């Protein structure tokens, strides 16, 4: 039991909260600021909640600061509600300053006059314990369809979805221990060559994206997380199985609730010249025992197929394997074959956890996106340039 709790703790610690943008590209954690003032507005929208506070500066002038927070989907887990802060409330906000020097900050905590304290990120220890309690009966066996195949989605009458991937970016299975954060940023850029068997141009581009703190991530423009990234982003994924129609939909709780179709009717993948490439490609799958094997190709190049900025070309072809060894575990494996970008096929794998009694929530990145203009100014992380 202890090991399973530890496992869940680790999984939650890796939970990618910054669903929309890489926090460190926009804000400088080395520049904390304490803002004491009066709430003038509170926007409870995806991808980020915004709190506006009138703060008296040292000269006595009132300055209106914008404080960005995580998505309401994440904040709700830490005890926030849409009415948590009201216009006129007196607050003290601890935050990180924006790199572009504007009156924008990334909120860490806010304390109300009553002493009530709200956090940006969940208390992972408490959240993990809650999660562990929820999944304590995890000896439950794999649910199955009448034909014997594992159910990848919900059992009728229940709720749930897959989240908390143990890996938040794609790294070759044989890479060994590489320190990488939940956005896919390497702790040590010298490890870049271990992440995947890059062609020289692709390694150069990956390193550039890492050095610039992933500021060019197409997800900042609200483009979808195609490929394996669908199984790395915050807010989870759900499978909607239609065995009578021999197909499965994978529904993303991140991105913009994008969906992906996996055909199970034996059809061949289309010839690349016959189709327009897409973000999620074309997928055809079959069951190999208890494992769903899915081949996909015809991907457009306009997205990153993993957190961390791994490049790909239209030659990308994926072989994914999905299995559910027990009720609460989804094992995801992917073989990446892109001769335009990598010197050989390579693979990666990680588990996702079942979030019981909840559904994926509505999330639209365009709802209140204000990040892109602030991304990485001239003073950004010079140590990584």
């Amino acid at each position, binding site marked *: 039991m202890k090991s399973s709790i530890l496992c869940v703790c680790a999984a939650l610690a890796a939970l990618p909260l910054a669903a929309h943008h890489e926090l460190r590209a926009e804000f400088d954690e080395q520049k904390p600021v304490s803002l004491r003032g009066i709430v003038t507005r509170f926007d409870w929208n995806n991808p980020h909640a915004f709190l506006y506070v009138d703060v008296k500066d040292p000269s006595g002038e009132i300055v209106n600061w914008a404080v960005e927070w995580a998505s309401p989907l994440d904040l709700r887990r830490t005890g926030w509600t849409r009415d948590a802060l009201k216009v006129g409330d007196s607050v003290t906000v601890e935050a990180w300053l924006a790199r572009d020097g504007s009156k924008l900050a990334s909120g860490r905590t806010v304390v109300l006059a009553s002493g009530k304290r709200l956090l940006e990120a969940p208390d992972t220890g408490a959240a993990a314990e809650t999660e562990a309690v929820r999944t304590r009966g995890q000896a439950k066996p794999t649910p199955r369809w009448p034909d014997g195949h594992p159910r990848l989605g919900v059992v009728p009458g229940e709720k749930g979805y897959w989240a908390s991937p143990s890996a938040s970016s794609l790294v070759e299975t044989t890479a060994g221990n590489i320190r990488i954060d939940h956005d896919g940023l390497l702790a040590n850029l010298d490890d870049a060559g271990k992440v995947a068997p890059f062609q020289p*141009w692709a*390694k*150069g581009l990956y390193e550039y994206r890492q050095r610039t703190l992933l*500021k060019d991530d*197409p997800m900042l423009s609200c483009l979808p997380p195609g490929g394996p990234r669908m199984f790395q982003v915050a807010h989870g994924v759900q499978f909607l199985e239609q065995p009578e129609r021999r197909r499965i939909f994978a529904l993303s709780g991140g991105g913009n609730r994008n969906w992906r179709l996996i055909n199970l009717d034996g059809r061949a993948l289309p010839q690349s010249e016959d189709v327009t490439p897409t973000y999620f490609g074309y997928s055809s799958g079959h069951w190999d025992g208890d494992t769903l094997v899915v081949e996909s190709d015809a991907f457009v190049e*306009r997205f990153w197929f993993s957190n961390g900025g791994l490049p790909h*070309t239209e030659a990308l072809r994926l072989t994914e394997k999905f299995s559910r060894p027990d009720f609460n575990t989804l094992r995801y494996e992917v073989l990446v074959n892109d001769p*335009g970008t990598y010197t050989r096929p390579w693979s990666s794998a990680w588990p996702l956890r079942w979030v019981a009694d909840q559904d994926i929530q509505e999330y639209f990145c365009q709802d209140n996106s204000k990040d892109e203009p602030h991304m990485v100014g001239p003073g950004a992380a010079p140590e990584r340039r």
Partner: protein
Amino acid sequence: MRRRSFFCLSLFALAGIAVALWAQEGHPLTGSWHGEWHPTAGQKIPILLYMKWNSKTIEGTINPGRNAVPLKVANLDASNWTVHFEADTKDQKHIAIDGKLDNIGSYNRTITGTWTEGAMKGDFKLTRD
């Protein structure tokens, strides 16, 4: 009627090409690049350079169309993002292009450097469409 159909078909074909070439995120050189080079001060010669990464080499054409000039050499050094291209025009002028790729994370990245064509030499700038 026939002329109108031809016009419509042409329009669709152009739109198709535009979509196909638009905003690729894969190999940094892939796509259409527009710009000009300056053999003398004040003289501007427009350039369209189309390049495509075929998984092993960079294929490219200067000014696609009737006066197209295929690239014979196209190299990218990803350690410093410099490029070197060579081509020969129909009238046997040798073209050598040396430049540096900048702002590579942007769809509209640029290449700037020196364009040599026969005895003429000048600076150039290309921006990816």
